[in-house]
């Protein structure tokens, strides 16, 4: 799951870069950057959820 989450984080950045090199239209680049940032942030949330399941307060200490 952590690998998937990290893939989402880096994948979001690649979406942003895809918009940058794939189009000269500001709107397209802006949309790609917003979508990429959203994907990366979702990836961080996913990564964090894997840590929460192992957190010390969730393990009965």
């Amino acid at each position, binding site marked *: 799951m*952590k690998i998937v989450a*990290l893939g989402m*984080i*880096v994948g*979001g*950045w*690649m979406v*942003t*870069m895809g918009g*940058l*090199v794939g189009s*000269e239209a*500001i709107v397209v*680049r*802006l949309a790609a*950057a*917003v979508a*990429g*940032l959203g994907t*990366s*942030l979702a990836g*961080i*949330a996913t*990564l*964090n959820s894997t*840590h*929460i399941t*192992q*957190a*010390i*307060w*969730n393990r*009965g*200490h």
Partner: protein
Amino acid sequence: MPTHRKSLAIAFAVLGLVALATPMRAEDEAAGTATIAASLKAISGPSTDDLTKGDPGGTLTGTVNDIVMADPKAGLTLADLANQIGQNRVAVNFVWTLVAGFLVMFMQAGFALVETGLCRAKNANHTMMMNFMVYGFGLFAYWVMGFAIQQGGSAGISNLGGMNPLNNEWKLSLFGKDWGLFGTKGFFLSGESYDVGVMVLFLFQMVFMDTATTIVTGAAAERWKFVAFAISTFFLGAITYPLFGNWAWGGGWLSQLGVNFKLGHGYCDFAGSGVVHAVGGLTALAVAMIVGPRIGKYNRDGSPNAIPGHDITMVLLGCFILAFGWFGFNPGSTLGASGNGSLRIGSIAVNTMLAGCTGSFGALLYMWIRFGKPDASMSGNGLLAGLVAITAPSGFVNTVGAVIIGFSAGVLVCLSVEFFERVLKIDDPVGATSVHGTCGLWGVLCVGLFADGRSNYGGSWNGVDGAVTGLFYGDPGQFVAQLIGVCTLVGVIFTLSYVFNAIVEYFVGQRVSAEVELEGLDLPEMGALGYPEFQLVTSSGGRSVNVGG
């Protein structure tokens, strides 16, 4: 010395210079040069007799006598005059940048006080030592390789004399563009980088890097193994920070988004909301996730408990020291006070002051309305949030923009702290992720929104002519460039920090044992208590209180 005679001679010299600037025939030019040479030779300063009487009025010190002549027998020449002017400009810029760097270095003391004050007394020595040693660990890593990676290809900083030895940037050619990735000159500050200008740049950039590394210690405080901290800090100072620093400040690909992709002036980060604070804040987030929350922070149902720090006076004093140091951070980032529009330092200093104050005001107001009390620690964090957010835009915005940026950051940091604590359940004892991560990213975006197009740093920025202009002043491309910078910080820098610290977790372990954490890290990790004359008592909630002296 008759003052009128000196004035007359200087007037002749100036007239000669003006005359030289107009087109003239060769014989006129030769005659003009001879006139100037004669005029310069006629200039004389105060006599030795006059000088031996002292100069209480300050009118005899700093005259033609003090201009260095290449050949004293030949007298003062035009070349001497021009060289002296050039050296004076660079000298002013050296001194300005060095003093600003010294101020930024002192911010380490502010961070140490804030973080230690926000931690419990049983971890005071450990927290203080992390803040103390981050200076040495970071400096060493940066000297070995960090500086070269970041600035090794940044030749062309004219304020500091050109930086000509730093002339090699490693680039990748993709999609018909050059993508600068890292510098390759300046390892160990040896070879050609043994240069006066390079040394000034190194000092200034080093203390910036150290600021980023010290952010992490706050988020992971009270449970971070000292050895893991040392390894993590070295990596941040040697690789992660310098990489993004290169992309933004060292001539790397982000700074070239304007030249290569017509996005405003490329990624613009005047003093480091992104380069310093977001890099530090996102690394802090990665480490805080890996080490996990402190024992007692969360209940079994996931609800959080407050774990108050042990000394709010330390916290607020630290915030004041940081605010003072920020006057080196932002105005110093002009890398000079003379030439290339550097006189904007006044505006940058005022912007810094305003944003810090409105940041603390925003946080205080939010906490007062929401919880009924003007919270001290969040007011301090609000001050820092405003300062963090104005760091990137400080050189490009006006005072109204600074006030809006600071105030919004003050509110944002409160929302962010609650979000990380209650929703993501990430335990960050000092709020470093929110102050530096969230507000750092906000500051980066603010350049793309509030830059008013009135700054002029030598007529161009990042190789694009004209002034940096944000969305609200007519350039949407600049906002997209900033957004790409934010995506890179979140997508690449966070990942790099996370993966490296996960490797440290696997081989070394990031977190101390539960027993050590409950006892406090001071004795087990450092061998000495921060407050040996106090008896520390642990309550059921994992809180320590001082009960006697």
